[in-house]
């Protein structure tokens, strides 16, 4: 694979890059590498998509009946303590 050691260095910093935590000169260097390395370009897109999916994964809401039943159970347990 072309420039593999460069790719491995980049892989170590990808989350910091995605989260915009790196100094601008390092970001520029990464962007240059991404422009020249299709493998890393695809890799970072898939990592960004992974983060995006996590951020948007919904959770089924708590049912009212469960909210009430849990409150009762908690207070019963607390009073029995």
């Amino acid at each position, binding site marked *: 694979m072309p420039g593999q050691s460069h790719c491995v260095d980049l892989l170590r910093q990808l*989350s910091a890059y995605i989260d915009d935590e790196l100094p601008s000169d390092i970001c520029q260097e990464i962007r240059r590498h991404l422009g020249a390395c299709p493998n890393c370009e695809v890799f970072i897109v*898939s990592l960004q998509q992974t983060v995006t999916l996590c951020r948007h994964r919904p959770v*089924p809401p708590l049912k009212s009946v469960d909210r009430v039943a849990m409150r009762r159970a908690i207070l019963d347990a607390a009073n029995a303590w």
Partner: protein
Amino acid sequence: MRASAPKKLSQPLPTHEPEEFDKLYRDHVDLIYRYAHRLCGEAEAAKDLVQETFLNAYRGLKDFRGEAQVSTWLYTIASRACIRMRRKRKGEPEHELSLDEFVPTSEGEFRLQIPMDGLSPEEALQNKELRQGLDQAIEALPKKYRMVLVLRDMEGLSAKEVGNIMGLNERAVKSRLHRARLFVRRELSARGITNHDDHKSGGLRS
């Protein structure tokens, strides 16, 4: 992504006051249920964790001095309870994720893709296979990595807040988060999920 703005108590709450507890419960139960569901992956275990969390909170109200946000305090209680409950239930071994295991060794591994081309995340997640793949990948994470990923990428907390909840410095949080993301990316992209149009036929939402 947080359900409600965190509230800060100005004074310590008196212990064993049902009205104070009710307010705490009412204001935060949905937040903690969502967190618990994401950690546990299913409703029954999530409800157990919510009950354990609020029972511990009820007992600890007298010691809570309002120095932290109430939500951070509850996240911390829930995280500790989760670790205790999982230990009891499974005795599951913790293992470290090494960055080296995520270094692609072939062009094919570099080029693994998530099947969401042109779709919004909401549309992509209507694909049952993708949704289940994501859930299973998160569930397969060792818990200390899963907890960081859930708090940071799903609950939307800052690295500093996650560090406070888990008793870690920010550097450790970021290191765990990166490994967790790489793990989920690899699990998800390696599954070969294909049927993008499932959601159009309906009936796939859980």
